């Protein structure tokens, strides 16, 4: 892990165009800002084989050992990308450089590096496009903002394409909807064609393509982790609970990001899921199963390329079909829901099992249990997709009064809510989590309006930026979010920030420690778990003495 200085200085620079058209080189790479490159065992693996991945590459070395005709490959692939993705092509052409995006990027705000402005990040690619694909660029060269493709350009791309978390905040403010995530994602894809891949994300992609999840957890390990959770719940609630795994004939498949099996504070969210599933089964007879094959909700492939994303998310519909489930419930995760909401049903064919088809003909949960009648998924979902977010489900259960809640069990928490970027801007789930939170706890405070909902700030670690070697970049990138959090902590005494995102839950505990903000991090499902009264199992509201973290709920009198 790279050391992050105690004091961060944001030094802004404003080079003129002739200056910034000169690409940076590996000599300009700063520790804490550049990613390690993938090793052969990650990108030359049987299950994840990338072109020219059999070479060990070191970013700080001059020679990047590119394949001999790398330039032809890049240009050919770039032409291909322009044909394959209209977004990429249109965004190459229509930017007017108005600058509306500049101070919307958390990495730009935190680093002051001019090439971290979304417009400039894209210009590093556009300048190549202009030179090689437009007549004006070829004729007028740098006067048209064009420059030829050189090895240094590749190095500049690697540096700046991997300082973007694909949070899409810039695309919200762009008058033409130019989405830097599209440009960055497809440029990373270009780089991967000449053997340049980032190590952090490829470790997880490879693991997921081989074992089913990012952690590389085997079936037994996953079952063991869940079992551990059930044991903890026995201590907390006194009930012996259970759950299903790989169970054929279950009503729904549940898919969570694999961090939930181990990491903290993800763990408490996992306990929340288990409590809910048990109450639902006991009360309504609905069975929900986990899967070891489809054990990963997240998808680091969405940081890498279309093909990698498809490789990872292809397992889930297949597993839904094999198990014969009716629909799929997704856990708390940010980029997972970009993938699950916007990508998965385009990248894959749908489950063809009879149960699925029959359920979606008339998708009322009453089909599964008379008690749940009235919760109709076709108010916004169809069998052409089939996923529901756990918080959407909980919101509906609350609205229809299908579960019992005791808000006062969360009285020791004062919460604020962080919208994960992809859930906000790649899905639009803004109200459901708030609806749930307000129904399971009494103290909830919003952060300032320009930092929440669709305008939410990234945690600074999404899009593959959670790597340890990027620590300084991460601590800088999280700055705008931390300022907003500090504001509510000071003003309302907030002591927990809830976020339904696995990467947030990994990044924020480190960030609040660095920025010295006395606040815990958790997920909404943890609060649901605390408040959920297991009525069907015979629990009374006052029975629960400890919350899911094991701290006493009510102060001793």
């Amino acid at each position, binding site marked *: 892990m790279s050391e992050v200085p105690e004091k961060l200085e944001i030094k802004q620079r404003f080079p003129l165009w002739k200056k910034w058209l000169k690409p940076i080189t590996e000599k300009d790479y700063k520790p804490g800002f550049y990613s390690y490159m993938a090793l052969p065992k990650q990108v030359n693996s049987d299950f994840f084989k990338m072109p020219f991945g059999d070479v060990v590459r070191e970013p700080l070395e001059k020679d990047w050992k590119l394949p001999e005709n790398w330039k032809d490959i890049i240009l050919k692939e770039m032409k291909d990308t322009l044909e394959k993705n209209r977004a990429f092509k249109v965004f190459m052409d229509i930017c007017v450089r108005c600058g509306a995006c500049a101070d919307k990027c958390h990495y730009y705000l935190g680093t002051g590096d001019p090439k971290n402005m979304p417009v400039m990040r894209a210009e590093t690619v556009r300048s190549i496009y202009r030179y090689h694909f437009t007549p004006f660029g070829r004729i007028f060269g740098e006067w048209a903002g064009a420059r030829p493709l050189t090895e240094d350009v590749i190095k500049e791309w690697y540096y700046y394409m991997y300082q973007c978390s694909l949070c899409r905040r810039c695309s919200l403010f762009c008058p033409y*909807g130019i989405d830097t995530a599209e440009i960055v994602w497809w440029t990373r894809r270009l780089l991967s064609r000449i053997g340049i891949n980032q190590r952090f994300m490829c470790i997880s992609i490879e693991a997921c*393509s081989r*074992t089913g999840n990012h952690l590389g957890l085997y079936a037994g390990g996953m079952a063991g982790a869940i079992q551990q959770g059930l044991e903890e719940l026995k201590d907390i609630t006194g009930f012996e*609970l259970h759950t299903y795994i790989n169970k054929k004939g279950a009503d729904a498949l549940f898919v969570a990001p694999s961090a939930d099996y181990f990491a903290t504070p993800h763990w408490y969210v996992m306990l929340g899921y288990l409590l809910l599933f048990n109450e639902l089964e006991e009360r309504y007879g609905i069975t929900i199963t986990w899967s070891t094959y489809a054990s990963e909700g997240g998808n680091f492939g969405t940081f890498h390329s279309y093909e990698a994303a498809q490789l990872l998310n*292809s397992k889930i519909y297949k597993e839904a079909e094999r198990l014969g489930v009716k629909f799929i419930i997704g856990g708390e995760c940010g980029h997972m829901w970009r993938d699950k909401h*916007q990508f998965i049903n385009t*990248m894959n064919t749908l489950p063809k099992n009879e149960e699925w088809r029959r359920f979606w003909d008339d998708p009322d949960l009453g089909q599964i249990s008379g008690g749940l009648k009235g919760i109709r998924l076709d108010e916004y979902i169809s069998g052409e997709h089939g996923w529901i977010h756990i918080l959407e489900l909980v919101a509906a259960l609350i609205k229809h009064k299908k579960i019992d809640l005791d808000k006062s069990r969360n009285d020791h928490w004062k919460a604020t809510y962080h919208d994960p970027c992809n859930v906000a801007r790649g899905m*639009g789930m803004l109200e459901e989590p708030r609806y749930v939170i307000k129904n399971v706890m009494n103290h909830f405070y919003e952060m300032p309006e320009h930092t929440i909902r*669709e305008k939410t700030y990234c945690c600074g670690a999404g899009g593959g930026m959670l790597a340890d070697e990027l620590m300084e970049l991460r601590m800088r990138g999280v700055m705008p979010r931390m300022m907003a959090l500090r504001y509510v902590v000071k003003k309302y005494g907030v002591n927990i920030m809830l976020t339904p995102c696995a990467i947030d839950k990994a990044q924020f505990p480190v960030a609040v420690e660095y920025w010295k903000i006395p606040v815990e991090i958790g997920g909404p499902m943890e609060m649901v778990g605390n408040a959920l009264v297991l009525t069907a199992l015979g629990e009374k509201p006052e029975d629960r003495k400890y919350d899911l973290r094991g701290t006493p709920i009510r102060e001793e009198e």
Partner: protein
Amino acid sequence: MSEIMYIFYILPYVAFAIFIVGVIYRIINWANSAVPLKVPTTAGQQPTFNFIRRTWVDKIDSPSNKFWAFIRMLFEVFLFRSLFRNTKYYVEKGGKNADTRWLWLFAMLFHYSLLIIVIRHLRFFTNPTPKFVSTIEYLDGLVGVAIVPPLLMTGVIALVALAFLWGRRIFLAKERSISLPSDHLILFFMAVILVSGLLMRYIVKVDLSYVKMFALSIITVHPPSPEVLANLHWLFLIHFTFVCITIAYLPFSKVMHFAGVWFSPTRNMPNDNRRKRHVNPWDPNPEVPILARVGIVVDGQVFKSKKLDWNTYYEMYKDQLDEIAENNYTIKPEL
């Protein structure tokens, strides 16, 4: 001498031909490019259970179907919806955001003034002038009626807005840094056109009867008489030439954003991913993922990944999976 003047008669046809062909080429070029994924930027509450409230802003910013996506496009194109969100971040004030709608305001003023100015110019190309053109001109001059000829507001507003938009590229460090020569070039064209036009109307007071005859000759494709050409004022010729150059330049420039924005997938697609499956034209039937189906072909070499289907997976982790099966696919706390 007089023959050379016919260049000015030819010029608009050439410029328009380049413009039309160029714009059509660009549009076809964009349209030919595939849309692999449905990726709207969802800027409001998604379509969801009926009990969750969605305001009309949500309906526009997170459109539930193609109709609302079209409404969103109209807001984007005619009201600059996204620019209206603009904020400014103040690091020094502990990270405060403030609404800054100056850019939106001046962009609106500039674009709409230009539109009205273009409509007003129709009076040169029509005989008699249609009612709506003279009405617009009358309204435009309402405020500046005390001046002779009446001061038309749009001309002044466009000039002020242009000064603002160019000024920020010159005086603000960030904007200066991101500006390319082409960004200044188009502003320079606009400035020449606006200033020469205003000069002709208010200061130099060019005789416009010849201008109108010239304009009508262009529209009716009847070459003007040498007398008309000889009487065109030099200031008009500058104005006219720059208009033609600008029109011819547009298809090659960033000004194509007026057409391109309609093709922007983050704006023109509805947020109905979970209702309607989007088909990727180059991967329409993804039964098996591309990497395991064909792999990546680069430079004649094929890089193919092994497929991890359930059977492969089961063979790899048989013992553990069998143990799970033995426990009847149920996990319970250990006693």
